[in-house]
């Protein structure tokens, strides 16, 4: 019974951590789906989002939701700027060049950030208070409720944008086949730009939520979650939106279980072990279809 109790408690923690991974992974998978780039800088965009949220709450005394929205808007624009300046000139370059550029952008954001906000971790103010709910003996705290609520709202919004709006249709078309989409009159540069905006703002939301959840942020906080969110995206099948969500949640749960029952030092190893297993067994991911490479 005790084991069972602990298991459920770890599952709750895992799902809340997983929702954050899912939010970051959505951006990864959208960007990969449309320009086939592992955006290494995505984790650092999430870091910028967390800092913007932190500044809004600490210095402008905003409540958490407006802070979240402002952070999402500014970070979304940052994502567009990064794409315009760093990736767009290399649209037709070899993929390795773009990958290296992405690593460069990632370093640039990390260390420029460090230059301005100093490497010392900041304490994210307590916006929820010490609320916790006792549901049938299991403890869910206020932060977790906030994470669930915001994640669900954002995912619903994203589904609406992708499935029902003209922009979403254009995004789906461009990720299916960019050239053909262009021939059909879709302005693919604009679609790519918008994808970066949406993906980056989701990452910013995840950043603010992590600040609320763990109470601490630092300029290098984006590296690990960024990589893990990529693992989540690959696990679900890269380029597939529901896949990123499911992958993120599975990853979060596995990590919570490993940290809870084995040792927290193996958390990061678990994520990468999953990645390698997925790539070896089913590289297209849980939801992906197998495609053969043609010459």
């Amino acid at each position, binding site marked *: 019974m005790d084991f069972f109790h602990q298991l459920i408690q770890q599952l709750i923690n895992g799902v809340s951590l997983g929702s954050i991974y899912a939010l970051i992974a959505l951006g990864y998978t959208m960007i990969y789906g449309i320009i086939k780039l592992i955006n290494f800088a995505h984790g650092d965009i999430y870091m910028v989002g967390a800092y913007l949220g932190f500044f809004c709450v600490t210095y402008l005394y905003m409540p958490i939701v407006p802070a979240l929205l402002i952070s999402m808007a500014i970070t979304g624009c940052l994502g567009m700027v990064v794409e315009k300046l760093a990736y767009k000139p290399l649209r037709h370059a070899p993929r390795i060049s773009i990958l290296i*550029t992405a*690593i*460069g952008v990632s370093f640039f954001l990390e260390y420029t950030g460090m*230059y301005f906000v100093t490497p010392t971790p900041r304490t994210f103010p307590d916006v929820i208070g010490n609320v916790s709910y006792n549901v049938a003996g299991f403890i869910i705290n206020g932060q977790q409720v906030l994470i669930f609520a915001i994640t669900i709202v954002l995912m619903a919004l994203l589904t609406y944008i992708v499935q029902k709006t003209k922009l979403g249709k254009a995004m789906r078309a461009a990720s299916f086949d960019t050239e053909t989409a262009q021939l059909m009159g879709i302005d693919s540069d604009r679609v790519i730009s918008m994808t970066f905006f949406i993906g980056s703002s989701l990452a910013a939301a995840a950043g603010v939520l992590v600040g609320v959840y763990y109470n601490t942020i630092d300029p290098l906080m984006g590296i690990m979650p960024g990589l893990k969110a990529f693992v989540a995206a690959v696990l679900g099948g890269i380029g597939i939106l529901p896949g990123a969500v499911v992958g993120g949640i599975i990853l979060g749960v596995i990590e919570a279980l490993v940290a809870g029952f084995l040792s927290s*030092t193996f958390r990061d190893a678990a994520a990468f072990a999953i990645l390698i297993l997925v790539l070896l067994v089913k590289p297209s991911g849980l939801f992906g279809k197998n495609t053969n490479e043609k010459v």
Partner: protein
Amino acid sequence: MNSVRKRDLTMLIFGLVVYAAIQGMISGGVIGSFWQLNIILICVNVIMSVSLNLINGYTGQFSLGHAGFMAVGAYVGVVATVNFHLPLIVALLLGALCAGTLGFLIGLPTLRLRGDYLAIATLGLGEIIRIVIMNIEYVGGAAGFKGIPHLTNFTWVFFVMLFTLFFVKNFVNSSHGRACISIRENEIAAEAMGVNTTKYKVMAFTIGAAFAGIAGGLFAHQFYLISPNSFTFLSSFNYLIMVVLGGMGSITGSIAGAFVVTFISAALASFPEARMIIYALALILLMFYRPQGLFGYMEVTNFAPIKKVLDKISGTKEN
């Protein structure tokens, strides 16, 4: 063939002259201990970047886990010298053997992946190696391995580096190396021409890993303490920067890259953020304006004036 050997001999003599000059300056007290350490680091980094270049540049397999193999070599090396009292050369060879074996075992399944998937998988593997080491109490866990004798000196690193350079150069110019280059140029075409792509990819990966292991052993015996934190993926990125900066597919480029990056790191040691921002901008601008790196596929021996001198010394003419 004869002229090639003569040219090798010329390069070897050139290397010996460089060695004598630097060793003379160290013995004469011209080079202080700070730059002495940096010269040793440059040599270790040259071994790392040349071996990574064999994987990334010549074979075109984008690996981001090179520091993991360095960690294996470093830890095996220090266990051999400290716990088993073996001489340094045996420790280095053991480190190379273990890192190479690990590279082989890891390479066999992961090299089926391509491009960015391989990049992220090797990054993950490098991290897994580090985390596993961190959890082995026998080698000090997260606190690191203390009390390593200072066995590395300039002579050691320089001659091991020279050996690495000749080994990689000869490998690349052999039929195996040509097969690796053909995989980089077009994997499907190489396979269609009968190149056993898996074999050559794994071969390049194993050799690269083994040399990273040697570099790790040399690195570890330079310091009193090594810890798993010296081998994070950030240091893998550091070696990648050296390779990319110098040119993917150029040994001269890797040497230049290792030299420049180590030099900048030493010069800006007190401004770590500024250093990283410079690296970042350098990487981005390099990809914009010169994606092939400083040297591209060129070697210093291919530049016309140097080639002329070399031909004159070896007393032969090409063709």
